[in-house]
């Protein structure tokens, strides 16, 4: 497939350099090189474009303005910043309209790989409408009680990084957003991180404060008017996250795999939130259909929306530049055989943790839930480990000990994070 990419930079030498450097991709990509935002917008109006890569500081319309306009007028386009500007103000202005941020000087391989990864996402979603919806998401709704907690903590005189990290790690929306920030070159970190607590530590409390209180990267689900109670989803997400981490720890010593398992487990149902926040009626239809027909939610989603929450979530995290293995785990957590790679991976952990949680804590509705894909486990040669994995579960779920209510957040507080309020002691 031929991807169309527009590069914008006010420095002609940078454009020419990019053009030469990317010449080897000329057969795969159609590239335009524009000296300013207005030229780029002309191209966007004229022909379909998949990705824009823009400088931030430019005379006339600057990068933040340009990408904001792209976001509203051409929502399906993936927005990448490539900037040598490192001041906090520029960065804070670009946080909202930019999917991923690369800093100059950017290694040719990194730039190519980043674009390549964005291109490969295209296969995940067929509908331009859905692509647009996902690409326009600036924040993911948070559990109201956790949202209040994080605002209170950050507005307090002396916010504790430990408390902030603990709150963020308990919320699906906050976790996703904070991982976007830390995996991007926004703050010059450019680290491969998928543990939200670790991410908060890397960013520092001041940056998090700025992001949350000034740039509003988080939002409360109260404002989003979700059609369902988040408690159950949060409960399940937390449990799967912890369980996936535990499974990964049992199978491998690789810290990235363990970390990715945790992050991906926590975020595996992110797509449900995207769906509920953007298309609440369709979300209702999905539930109704699933109940009427007695089919898996996944199938109902496919029927009503044309895609699944797995793909929606993966698409967003891919756009946001989260590690590939996390994106992959989201995309295939219900159908792990769709992934061609082998060996124990975060995907394996999330798939198993999800199925085990459903198996051990059946939900009140009698809907069929996803089961462990025995063939997949067999194929990995891990069939013998299944009983050991089951053994890991009960303790973990007991620790989570959540009720299915809106106030789940406060329960987590007391039950699982005694360290969270260390500051008050």
């Amino acid at each position: 497939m031929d991807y169309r990419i527009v590069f914008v930079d006010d420095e002609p030498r940078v454009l020419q350099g990019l053009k030469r450097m990317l010449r080897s991709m000329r057969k795969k990509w159609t590239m335009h090189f524009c000296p300013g935002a207005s030229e780029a917008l002309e191209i966007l109006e004229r022909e379909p474009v998949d990705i824009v890569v823009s400088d931030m500081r430019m005379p006339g319309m600057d990068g933040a303005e340009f990408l904001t306009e792209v976001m509203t007028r051409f929502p399906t386009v993936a927005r990448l910043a490539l900037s040598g500007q490192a001041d906090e103000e520029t960065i804070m202005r670009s946080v909202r309209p930019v999917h991923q941020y690369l800093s100059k000087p950017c290694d040719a391989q990194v730039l190519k790989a980043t674009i390549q990864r964005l291109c490969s996402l295209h296969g995940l979603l067929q509908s331009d409408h859905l692509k647009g919806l996902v690409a326009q998401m600036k924040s993911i709704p948070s559990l109201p009680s956790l949202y209040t907690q994080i605002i209170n903590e950050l507005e307090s005189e002396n916010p504790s990084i430990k408390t902030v990290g603990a709150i963020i790690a308990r919320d699906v929306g906050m976790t996703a957003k904070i991982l976007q920030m830390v995996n991007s070159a926004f703050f010059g970190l450019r680290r491969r991180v998928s543990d939200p607590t670790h991410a908060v530590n890397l960013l520092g409390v001041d940056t998090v404060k700025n992001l949350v209180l000034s740039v509003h990267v988080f939002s409360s689900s109260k404002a989003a008017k979700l059609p369902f109670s988040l408690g159950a989803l949060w409960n399940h997400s937390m449990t799967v996250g912890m369980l996936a981490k535990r499974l990964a720890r049992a199978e491998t010593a690789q810290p990235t795999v363990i970390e990715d398992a945790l992050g991906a487990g926590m975020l595996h149902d992110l797509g449900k939130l995207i769906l509920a926040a953007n298309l609440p009626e369709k979300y209702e239809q999905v539930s109704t259909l699933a109940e009427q027909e007695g089919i898996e939610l996944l199938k109902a989603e496919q029927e009503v929306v044309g895609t699944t929450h797995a793909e929606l979530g993966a698409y967003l995290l891919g756009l946001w530049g989260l590690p590939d293995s996390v994106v992959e785990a989201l995309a295939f957590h219900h159908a792990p055989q769709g992934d061609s790679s082998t060996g124990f991976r975060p995907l394996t952990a999330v798939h198993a943790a999800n199925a085990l949680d459903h198996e051990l804590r059946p939900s009140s509705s009698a809907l069929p839930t996803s089961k462990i894909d025995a063939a997949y486990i067999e194929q990995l040669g891990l069939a013998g480990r299944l009983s050991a994995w089951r053994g890991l579960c009960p303790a973990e779920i007991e620790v989570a000990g959540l009720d299915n209510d809106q106030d789940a957040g406060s329960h987590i507080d007391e039950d699982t994070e005694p360290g969270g309020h260390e500051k008050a002691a």
Partner: protein
Amino acid sequence: MTNQAFTAVEKDKESAIVDAPCDTGASAGARAQLVLERRDELFRILYDTVMEATSADYDQVFSILCRNLRLLCGARSVMLASYEPHPPMLRIEAIDFQDELRHNCQESIGKIIADPPACLIGGCEATQIQVCDPELSSQIEEFFGCRTCSAACRDSIDRYRISCLRDGELLAIGMILLPSGWTLRQQDIINAYLNIGVVILHRNKAVRESSQSEKRFRTYVEQATVGILILIDDRVRYANPHLSDLMGCPAGDLDEPFYDFLFPEDRPHLDGYLKVLRSSHQSSPDLQIGFRHRTGHRIDIEISGTRVTYTGEPAELLFLRDVTERNTLQMQLSRAAKLEAIGQLAGGIAHEINTPTQYVGDNTRFLQETFSDMLELISTYQTLMERARARATTEEDFLKAKEAAEAIDIAFLEEEVPKALVQSLEGLGRISTIVAAMKAFANPQVCDTRQIDINKLIQDTVTVSRNEWKYVAEMETVLDDSIPCIPINAAAINQAILNIIINAAQAVAGTIENGSKEKGKISIRTRCEGNWILIEIQDTGGGIPKVVQPRVFDPFFTTKEVGSGTGQGLALAHAAVVDSHGGKLTFETKIGKGTTFVIRLPVAEADGNHAGSHGEEDTAA
């Protein structure tokens, strides 16, 4: 009323100097003798009064006057109260009695009545004694609190009222109680006595006030939080306690070895200062020198002095202020302002370096790929050559070679490779320029002054500040090669020019935000004009509004939003140019057209003294 006759009533018991009745039966000689004795007695009383009262404190004067007045009149009782007009109040000062009439009236002494009723103080037109009508006298008696007399006693007493005035102002009132039937025949003597009393009172009051004010001023001097020093012939005649505190030594130790507290290298400065002070009638500017605190550390002292006469001798009065902390703060402030400018530049410089690094890297990557493509092509050609040598070439071989050449697009490479090389070299050149300029900009010795090429300095400053102006303005530099190198503190002048450039860029940015999207222009010109080097920095910004113009160089004055600048930039530029280099910094501005700042630096004379010790203060940061 005042001239009312006092009828003579004979009374035999009491004896008084003034009015005691004479024995009519006595001989003329004896009577004359008596009169003489009485006169002696009168003078004795007057003499005693004057002697006693003049040497007494003000507080005691009233009781002396009171006692002697009673003796003079042979009165049973005399009461005196002082009067203060601002605010109006009466204070009972003294009451004197004959022994048998001693009441508990003494308790009344010190009693104060604020806003006394008109009846008590009214009708007093001169220093005199008057007959008092019963109604008024009972009010006065009530005021003095002497109502304990029995009714019989009351009837046997005549009451007279006293008023004492000086220059028409009431000083005191009083009352005299005489036994009934006595007369005041020699009223004029009493009036004269009262007048003497007024003079004494007035004098003692003045003495008291002056001693009080001296005490007060002494307190001021001793509690002053500046060091105060009086020198006569370089010897300490007075030093206040604060000065001892400043030097960290006990009071008194300052006397002789005052100069020991100076650092030896500073002594000539103080000598010079005192010399000027003694010889000139004008006050000389303050002197700043270092003193050695007793613990050995240096304290910066600012001295301002004046010539005075002390105990009749010409002396120098010096005020010494500890400005160590102020100097430190000033230094920190100017350092902070400089750091602010550098911090502002740091992000821009990073960007300036990152951009060429980006395209140099991209071009290099391109050249790398191209070279491997070329190698492939060359190997295809080599194969072709070998086959040609073996005379085994086929049409297919040529086709293959042609395809290979087309695949890597030789025409494109022929055009792009040289460009990539040129641009990469340019990019590297730009990085080196920025790094060199940054080094030149940031590195100059802290307070060193040496021969500096102003043009080079301007170019460096323009380079490091490029990111500040390039988005809003074109930069034009017209630098006169013939201007001489001059000894200046490069860091300070760099800073000044940088601050003006940043200011210009912000002025231009302001007009761009106001609608016109066209870039503005900043022009920098240098030239020589007589003994001055001129640096003109012109912008096409919005100009400086008239109300703001007088404050442009004020420290902390800023028209920018809170948080975007401390308002120190132009103030520092002014300090650097004017205070440190004896130059001038002026501006011309036109609303809507722009502003031109002009720096004038003197082409230094041989000694190059323009950037003297003052310069260090500005640039020590």
